[in-house]
């Protein structure tokens, strides 16, 4: 890690590529929040990697000066874990949509959580498949009419917050770009958490999203968990509050493990150190293959 001589600014993480998102898209605010969080953390862009899948939100890596991989639909988490294990010094941020994360990629979430590699997963939850023009997503509310559910969806939505809490994630938060300072601070806190961390960002799709999920509605509706007196160390209360996903818009940290266990990459380092003590001298290496 190198400490920059001049403090880094949000603009240092902004690439020259102009986002092609629809004007008004919530992802513009999320991107600003990410720049600000990274500036606050102060790691230079070459020490940061953004990994994403496919979707409008998954375009994020291209809009930063950090390393980036706009990879394969639903596969951002396994790729990010590989990147972090190959180079544990990198700060790895995974970013993508609700479809990418909870339908095609849903199977990876449990394993990323239980493996507990120190990466941050940011889902831009717009309750729809934006990129492919407005189909039902796993977080779409029941009854939603879309091109793939013209008579209204019959399915219950996935609750990303409960999903992550139930798998045992050590850091679970929710934010909205309707509150930029709050969202940037939460992203920063998630990145600083020493283990797998998750932030669900309600990032409206202005083109295919519902009117009641737009930022103007967020501004009127959102309540911080701090204002409810929630203690982020209280996992059961966090689960209870998370059940309001889809009806209330709570922002802040639902759960933060007060005693974070060592992340996987640290456990690996310890294992290597331990095993190397037991290593045979060079001239006895082949003994392992000899029958006694």
């Amino acid at each position, binding site marked *: 890690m190198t400490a920059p001589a001049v*403090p880094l*600014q*949000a*603009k240092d993480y902004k690439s020259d590529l*102009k*986002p*092609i*998102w*629809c*004007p*008004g*898209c*919530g992802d*513009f*605010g999320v991107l*600003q929040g990410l720049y*600000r969080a990274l*500036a*606050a953390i102060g790691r230079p862009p070459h020490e940061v990697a953004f990994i994403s899948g*496919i979707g*409008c939100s998954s375009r994020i890596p291209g809009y930063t000066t950090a390393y980036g991989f706009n990879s394969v*639909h639903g596969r951002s988490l396994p790729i990010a874990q590989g990147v972090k294990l190959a180079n544990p010094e990198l700060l790895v941020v995974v970013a993508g949509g609700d479809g990418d994360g909870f339908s095609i990629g849903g199977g990876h979430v449990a394993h990323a959580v239980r493996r507990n590699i120190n990466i941050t997963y940011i889902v831009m939850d717009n309750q729809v498949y*934006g*990129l*492919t*023009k407005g189909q039902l997503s796993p977080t779409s509310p029941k009854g939603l009419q879309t091109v793939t559910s013209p008579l209204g969806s019959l399915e219950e939505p996935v609750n990303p917050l409960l999903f992550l809490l139930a798998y045992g994630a050590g850091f679970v938060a929710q934010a909205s*770009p*309707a*509150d*930029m*300072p*709050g969202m940037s601070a939460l992203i920063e806190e998630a990145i600083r958490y020493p283990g797998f961390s998750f932030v669900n960002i309600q990032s*409206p799709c*202005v*083109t295919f999203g519902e009117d009641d999920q*737009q*930022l*103007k509605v967020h*501004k009127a509706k959102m309540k911080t968990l701090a204002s409810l007196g929630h203690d982020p160390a209280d996992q059961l209360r966090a689960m209870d509050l998370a059940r309001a996903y889809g009806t209330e818009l709570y922002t802040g940290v639902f759960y933060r493990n007060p005693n974070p266990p060592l992340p996987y990459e640290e456990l690996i380092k310890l294992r290597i150190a331990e095993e190397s003590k037991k290593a045979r001298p060079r001239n006895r290496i082949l003994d392992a293959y000899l029958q006694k």
Partner: protein
Amino acid sequence: MTTQKQTQGIDFATISMRDALDLAVLIEEEARDRYEELAAQLILHRTPGAAAFFTKMMRVEEVHRKQLFEQRTRNFGNQPSGVSREMIYDVEAPDYDEVRMNMTPRTALEVALRSEVKAHAFFVNALKHVASAEVKKLFEHLCEEEVEHQNLVKAELAKLEPDEPGSGDDFGDDPVAQ
């Protein structure tokens, strides 16, 4: 109207004249950059009328920024600043969700008007806490300027014909499948 906090880590009760000027410069810079971004988004999404207006606003904000920056340099040379861009959030810059593809020039002007009103409210609020007479004078002057800008935008709005019913409807269907 925004409900979010617009600054972080700035204490208006103790802010120095130098930092107050720097803050004013940063506010104009943020607005300039946002108008530039919004214009680029609208050009990309085939909304040239609104984009042209935002480009004009970008130039206006740059003129204000320069004037304030010259005042700062005259009075304080290149002394280091106690405020940074990371401390401000959309003070005069329109929120990202204010724009839509196919928006009309009239709605673009309305966005600018709301932003000038927002900036005015910001300085009025800040003034409640300011102790320094010098900073007070500066903020009062900036308040007056914001009112002037509002009047200019209102005058431009008055020149425009009302939008045709249905114009500016968001028929956007832009993302490209991968």
